[in-house]
């Protein structure tokens, strides 16, 4: 600082606008530091339950999940895992913590939870109907039934679960796991109207419900209109319909040579199911380059390990028939070309069309919403792409009593998004029934509590594990391919679960800085293993980011800025790769740094018993 003081050129002096001191009372600041929780649509407190798993508190870990994402057993196997690419561990070494697999551990090893279920309040006289029995509707039911609402669920199938049941093959999600988590909700006194297709919203509204929740998903698989489609007949199947037919036992065979069209997770489920129903030569043929396929990387890996070929950059041209029977398909080889605006176009390479022989074609090129059953004269407005107009915060349509959620609201997403939509719609429905403005959303429950237990003792394990990500064991391949119900992933055992859990950096245990007692001794700067702490002159954010010990170039990661210190400098911490090891707090002679757990529980439709969890 003596040099700073004496530099004569004014360039070294900060110019306004300086960065403002960080307001850590804003719950979003520390929430954002917990990358996994921030990325999770339902904002599940991930580090909290991972610590519980390490302590073998599986039931507690399950309940943290159950409160937040309703289907821990299902999601622990099938979640799209937005948390994992966000995981901080992935930025300091190769791979993120196997969060999803740990969630499954909580479900696999939990004890009895009956006594932990919310008490069901006496009926409040309000009646809610959910159309569709999938994750969004079940979440609405789970949140509202304990408050005393009478909830009715319609589904066209014989049991609840929706797409979780009809589209996710049993070798990825055993029926018993799904049944357990669906039944648990139905036991809250839900009136089920299964095996009933709703073909008129108007008639449902006439039954005088207090609110209608539409959670019908995106039930229509996209068709492929190319030459030969009309004539191809019974050897062409829409992927999601075919998977449903397999799930319900209507289909148990497929030809030896199968072409699966599409590059998403449905395509992966189709090809792996084909391998189990007699397909020996199964090819996934996708228009786009391999790298931009929509399927999750782990699902692609699993398909490939089951000897499914994936051919990219092939656009289907026509179905080839011989004597009225499908014998194969022709494809045009393409290459991605980017225009000036960066938009991608798939341009033909001009090669001869390629022919691939096949016996069956499964078409998994996308899903669509379809609302023939909603009358257009009931005050429910439809907008672009013939989708209902739905408020993104309240999930209310333009009809005051009708709410949408899950894939039904804004098009195909995934289970965890459906759950979050369900939570939000439940809040809206509850507030509507209580005459509270729907836009007045309840605040999350946030606490920030010191974890200091002694001079150098913390209530969390701050000694970072150096282990690499553990692979989850798989069932023997021959056995797995021979039995469509045999779950492929075996899940972590307790030892593997512990070791994997220890890789978690506890990003919810925050470094909290109290400027008024800092003596600027630099001890924290010296000890920080990842150079995220700086004492420097304040300035404009872009300049400050460049001037740090290691420039903070990831703009998605915030800087933690202190009030001005006695030397005129400020403390600036780049949150990007902080290990949350607590060494800054251990080295601090004045306890200006403290490690405090930021526990963030999303708001739910309010209920005493549920409030215990959030």
């Amino acid at each position, binding site marked *: *600082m*003596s*040099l*700073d003081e*004496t530099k004569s050129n004014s360039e070294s002096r900060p110019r306004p606008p300086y960065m403002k001191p960080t307001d850590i009372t804003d719950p979003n600041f520390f929430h954002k530091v917990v990358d996994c929780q921030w990325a999770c649509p339902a904002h599940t407190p991930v580090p909290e339950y991972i610590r519980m798993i390490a302590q073998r508190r599986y039931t507690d870990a399950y309940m943290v999940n159950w409160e937040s994402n309703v289907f821990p057993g299902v999601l622990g196997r099938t979640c799209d895992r937005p948390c994992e690419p966000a995981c901080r561990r992935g*930025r*300091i*070494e190769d791979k993120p913590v196997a969060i999803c697999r740990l969630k499954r551990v909580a479900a696999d090893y939990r004890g009895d939870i009956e006594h932990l279920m919310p008490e069901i309040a006496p009926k409040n006289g309000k009646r809610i109907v959910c159309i569709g029995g999938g994750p969004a509707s079940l979440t609405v039911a789970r949140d509202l039934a304990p408050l005393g609402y009478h909830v009715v669920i319609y589904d066209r199938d014989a049991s609840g679960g929706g797409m979780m049941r009809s589209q996710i093959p049993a070798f990825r999600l055993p029926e018993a796991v799904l049944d357990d988590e669906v039944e648990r909700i139905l036991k809250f006194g839900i009136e089920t109207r299964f095996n009933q297709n709703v073909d008129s919203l108007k008639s449902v509204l006439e039954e005088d419900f207090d609110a209608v929740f539409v959670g019908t998903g995106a039930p229509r698989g996209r068709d492929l209109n190319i030459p030969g489609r009309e004539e191809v007949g019974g050897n062409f199947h829409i992927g999601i319909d075919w998977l449903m037919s397999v799930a319900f036992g209507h289909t148990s065979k497929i030809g030896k040579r199968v072409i699966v069209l599409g590059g998403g997770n449905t395509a992966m489920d189709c090809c792996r199911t084909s391998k189990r129903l007699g397909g020996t030569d199964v090819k996934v043929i996708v228009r786009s380059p391999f790298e931009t396929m929509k399927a999750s990387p782990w699902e692609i890996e699993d398909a490939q390990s089951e000897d499914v070929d994936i051919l990219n950059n092939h656009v289907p041209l026509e179905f080839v028939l011989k004597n009225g029977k499908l014998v194969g398909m022709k494809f045009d080889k393409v290459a991605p070309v980017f225009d000036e605006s960066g938009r991608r176009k798939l341009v033909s390479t001009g090669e001869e069309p390629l022919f691939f022989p096949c016996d069956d074609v499964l078409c998994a090129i996308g899903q669509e919403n379809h609302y023939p059953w909603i009358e257009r004269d009931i005050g429910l407005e439809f907008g672009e792409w013939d989708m209902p107009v739905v408020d993104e915060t309240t999930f209310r349509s333009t009809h005051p009593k009708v709410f949408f959620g899950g894939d039904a609201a804004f098009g195909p997403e995934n289970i965890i998004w459906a759950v979050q939509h369900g939570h939000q719609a439940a809040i809206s429905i509850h507030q509507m029934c209580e005459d509270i403005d729907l836009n007045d959303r309840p605040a999350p429950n946030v606490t920030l509590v010191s974890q200091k237990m002694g001079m*150098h003792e913390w209530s969390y394990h*701050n*000694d*970072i594990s*150096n282990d690499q990500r553990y692979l989850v064991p798989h069932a023997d391949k021959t056995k797995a391919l021979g039995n469509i119900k045999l779950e492929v992933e075996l899940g972590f055992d307790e030892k593997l679960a512990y070791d994997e859990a220890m890789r978690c950096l506890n990003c919810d245990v925050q470094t909290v800085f109290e400027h008024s007692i800092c*003596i*600027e*001794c*630099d*001890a924290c*700067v*010296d*000890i920080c*293993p*990842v*150079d*995220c702490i700086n004492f420097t002159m304040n300035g404009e954010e872009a300049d400050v980011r460049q001037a740090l010990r*290691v*420039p903070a*170039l990831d703009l998605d990661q915030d800087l933690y800025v202190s009030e001005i210190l*006695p*030397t005129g400098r400020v403390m600036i911490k780049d949150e990007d*790769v902080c*290990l949350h*090891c607590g*060494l800054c707090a*251990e*080295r*601090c*002679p*004045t306890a200006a740094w403290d490690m405090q757990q930021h526990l963030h529980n999303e708001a739910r439709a309010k209920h005493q018993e549920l409030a215990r969890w959030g």
Partner: protein
Amino acid sequence: MTYIAKPKFHHPKLPLNDLGLTRRDYEGAMSTLCAGCGHDSVSAAIVEACFELNLPAHRVAKMSGIGCSSKTPTYFLSKSHGFNSVHGRMPSVATGANLANNSLKYIGVSGDGDTASIGFGQFAHAVRRQVDMLYVVENNGTYGLTKGQFSATNDRVSVGRKGQKNAFGAIDLAAMAIQLGASFVARSFSGDKDQLVPLMKAALSHKGFAFIDVISPCVTFNNHIGSTKSFEFVRDHEHTVTGVDYVPHRETITVDYEEGSVIDVTLHDQSRVRLRKLDTGYDLSDQAGALQHIMSHQAKGEVVTGLLYLDAGETELKEKMDMVAAPLNSLGVAELRPGMAALEKINAGLR
């Protein structure tokens, strides 16, 4: 101190030096000093300086005596040689090591007790002989390891933690080094790495005895109001005579300085110390002037920091003794034991 080892993970974008190493590769074992000890910052500055100078750690020898300061060589450059000697005897050991193998860089780390009390005589002769080394004193004015008695560098006016008065005046080690003939003398502050790191880089590039007196507050026993070796006091009373930048010899000058505002001094290895003169009329090569400057500011209660004295032309011990240039440990039996004939010749010369 901390109880867990520093995690091995480092920032993925941490820069590499010419040897392909990160700053983290120059660290040592986990420090067991008190949390916030200035000495840990001095260790960090040594790490930073060695990293930036691209020094291969295995060509460095760390020498120390006894005391909190003398524990610190364990906490930096874990791949270097080291010798933890008897209390106050580091200068002798360093002198011997230096004569045996002058191809290593020697970093001596000592404290105010180790240097200004028990090892004072040893220190004086290492300076006088121009042993080629960087000698760092981590000066906190207190005997920390024996629970906070005044050391010989504690200022007369500086009171103890419980208000005890200090009966004796202080030894100013920087002034002493200048007087004894050190060719590179600086003073700095553990809380100011912007100043300390360039000084260390220059000192490590200097040939001869380079001395840095680093005021390094003891957070446990000497960081209270009334102490003149506290973080707060030093910050408030620091007076920098010369701003120092270190310019490696390969680097060309890119910044335009106003004419006359900077002086470059070329060191032995062709790197340069760039001095931004802050006190007009201050002459770095004037021993008497430097001493007077230190003392006049001291009288005003100020702590003079920066590069205080530099004689880049001075020779070091081995040259002074006209010794063979090669390290002694690289010589073979034939050179080291010239045999009876040579002995006879020497004996004959004495008759």
